[in-house]
């Protein structure tokens, strides 16, 4: 019999206790990694968004628009390859208000080419009429381009609502009142997951004519740069153009723009981090105590082992190994359950978060905590067991 099998035998002797303790550790680590994962997700959602695209919005805040006349003026700034526009629509499903998703009015001929690397059209209607397609635009969007109230929806959204190509979806406008029918003419898949597949995109012209009385104003301008390394200067140049007008702008990289949304969560991510720590501490405390209790029960056994000739150091290793197996095993299971279970399933808290990621750093931290805990709750009993005099061990009455 070697040492390892001795350790295993000890663990299996009280299977129930070993199981319960290990499960406690699994749950503690799972929760820790899950909560930290929320922070990871929010952080990585900042890192999306290109650094070679800029977003221009009204300086006061996102809810203020900008005039369309800015379009050509911005496009004339050196270093800018293409300019598109995007407006938040804010429609609601009149039948099921809880079915919320984002809708944007975009200028398709410029928008889709800018995002050509991030988005690909997977399903589409064949065009009913021949329509001249602007250069650079995916020919699969021909049907979409030929109809004013056509829309393109993300694959996830399409599947979630069980829509069909050619189906009409009617939304109630909240900012632009009235009933708005949209015909689905294409479905897109987001090659870059940060783009999001739960969005509906439709023609800006439709919004301008039906909702703005033909006098279109713009929510944000999207600028694609031909000189991405000059992003900072170009942004300043654009803002300087409109500095003293009544619609002053603020231009930043797409990444900074996204980061702005994440920062709106305020303190909540910090609180989540704190909860994560508290959780781990609590449950590990209990598990650690259990292991110490278990070790204390076996003093007589330790006496016997020592009588048989086992060295102090060996005893130390055995007791420590038992604690390590429980905590490390539980820790690994819990951490990987979080990583593969949550990240793999694309859990997104019902649309409130981007699809979850759990970083390897979090997994490593979690396992590190488990090891630390194993060490602390194993060291003391291991130390005590190794120093135990045979006489004292055998004298103890249970």
């Amino acid at each position: 019999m070697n040492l390892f099998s001795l350790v295993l035998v000890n663990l299996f002797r009280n299977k129930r206790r070993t199981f319960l303790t290990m499960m406690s550790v699994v749950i503690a680590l799972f929760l820790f990694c899950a909560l930290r994962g929320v922070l990871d997700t929010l952080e990585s959602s900042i890192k999306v968004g290109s650094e070679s695209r800029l977003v221009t919005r009204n300086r006061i805040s996102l809810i203020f628009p900008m005039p369309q006349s800015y379009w050509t003026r911005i496009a004339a700034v050196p270093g800018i390859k293409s300019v598109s526009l995007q407006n938040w629509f804010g429609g609601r499903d009149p039948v099921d208000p809880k079915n919320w998703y984002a809708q944007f009015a975009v200028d398709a001929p410029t928008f889709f080419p800018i995002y050509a690397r991030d988005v690909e059209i997977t399903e589409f209607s064949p065009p009913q009429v021949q329509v001249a397609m602007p250069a650079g635009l995916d020919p699969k969007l021909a049907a979409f381009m030929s109809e004013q109230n056509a829309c393109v929806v993300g694959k996830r959204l399409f599947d979630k609502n069980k829509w069909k190509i050619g189906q009409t979806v009617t939304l109630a406008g909240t900012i632009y009142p009235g009933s708005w029918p949209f015909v689905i003419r294409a479905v897109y898949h987001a090659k870059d997951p940060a783009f999001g597949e739960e969005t509906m995109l439709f023609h800006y012209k439709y919004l301008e004519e039906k909702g703005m009385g033909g006098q279109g104003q713009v929510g944000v301008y999207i600028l694609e740069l031909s000189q991405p390394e000059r992003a900072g200067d170009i942004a300043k140049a654009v803002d300087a153009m409109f500095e003293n007008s009544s619609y002053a702008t603020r231009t930043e990289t797409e990444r900074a723009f996204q980061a702005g949304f994440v920062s709106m969560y305020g303190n909540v991510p910090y609180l989540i981090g704190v909860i994560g720590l508290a959780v781990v501490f609590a449950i590990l405390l209990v598990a650690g105590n259990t292991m110490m209790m278990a070790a204390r029960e076996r003093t007589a056994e330790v006496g016997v082992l020592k009588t048989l000739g086992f060295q102090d150091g060996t005893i130390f290793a055995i007791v420590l190994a038992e604690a390590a197996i429980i905590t490390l095993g539980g820790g690994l299971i819990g951490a990987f359950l979080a990583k593969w279970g949550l990240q793999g399933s694309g859990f997104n808290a019902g649309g409130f978060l981007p699809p979850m990621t759990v970083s390897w750093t979090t997994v490593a931290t979690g396992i590190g905590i488990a090891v630390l805990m194993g060490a602390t709750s194993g060291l003391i009993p291991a130390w005590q067991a190794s120093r135990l005099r045979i006489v004292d061990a055998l004298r103890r009455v249970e």
Partner: protein
Amino acid sequence: MAIPISYNIRNVMQRPLTTLATGSGIAMVVMILIGAFALASGFQAALVETGSTENAFIRRTGADSEISSGVSRDAANIIRALPEVAVGPDGRALVSTDLVVLTNLERVGQTGSSNVPIRGIDPASLALRPQVKVADGRMFTPGTDEVMVGKRVSRRFKGLGIGEQVKLGQQNFTVVGTFTAGGSAFESEIWGDNAVLMPALDRQDAFQSVTFRMRDPATFAALKKRLEADPRLGVQVQTEREFYASQSQLLASVLRVAGVMITLIMAVGAIFGAMNTMYAAVGQRTREIAVLLTLGFTPFAIWMSFLFESVFLSLIGGVLGCLLALPINGITTSTTNWSSFSEVAFAFRVTPLGMGIGLAFAAMMGVVGGFLPARQAARQPLAATLRAG
């Protein structure tokens, strides 16, 4: 006959370290549950208290928030002249036609920025919201480029201290005072004269909402029906309180659901811990149990006794958790209310209900955790245990 509970209490006291460890585990679970509820309650309270049941709140039909609403000047004038509008102490109608927009400001001490609401009110209508009181400095002078800032945002954002200038739209405004509003959402806003703010922000043709004090709040239902049917207006009518309650619903329920989910998972872990402790306790006391059985206590009594011990242990943890959660009460934090797209600062609110739920949850954990171990104790074969040892 039942085993006296002093047996259980003494036993729990006799293992102080174990009791403390298990109790702390349960205490943490309870504390986080109470904390999550406090977060949601605090947020909801901040919003609900913003509104009064005596004020009617009017915005455009179909708008789901204040900022996406637009009430034309004509409609506002019609509403202002309604007979149901109460008259203030100065003889004028107690009506406020509000401009509400968002401005994106940088945070103090934290990177990033958030949307802060600017509310342009009719200065004469301050009596409409009696919970608003000037805290430092003074109220803005009507007709000037002065503003006053809610106390909660004054500290959190750059440029909002008294005497500082903040650029709103095209113009610079001077902050002359801060105000409190009973902890409600108004404390997260910047207030000024709508006659000055509307041109500065280029929002001249429509207000976002109209609020007025009702002469007789009991007639609200009839008033609502009439106004919503009026084709000249195109509005939806609620009491101010109803509106703010609806704005808080989404985020509050998200916070609660998230809190409960996290707590449930934690609870499973804590229950495993409690179970372990109880199994160990039962294991150590086999001879005692055998003696009890010999004395004539029924297995059922033993079962109940150990179950009680588990619940007692958990309740100790529960009370500890409540005590640990109390200091959270009153801590302010803020987040963006996605329903209104603006930042709301609020304070954690630990309620007796929250603590009650926490304690009940602790007891439940004790029952679930102690059930199986207690059953094992009760089913102990008598002779075998007396013989062993």
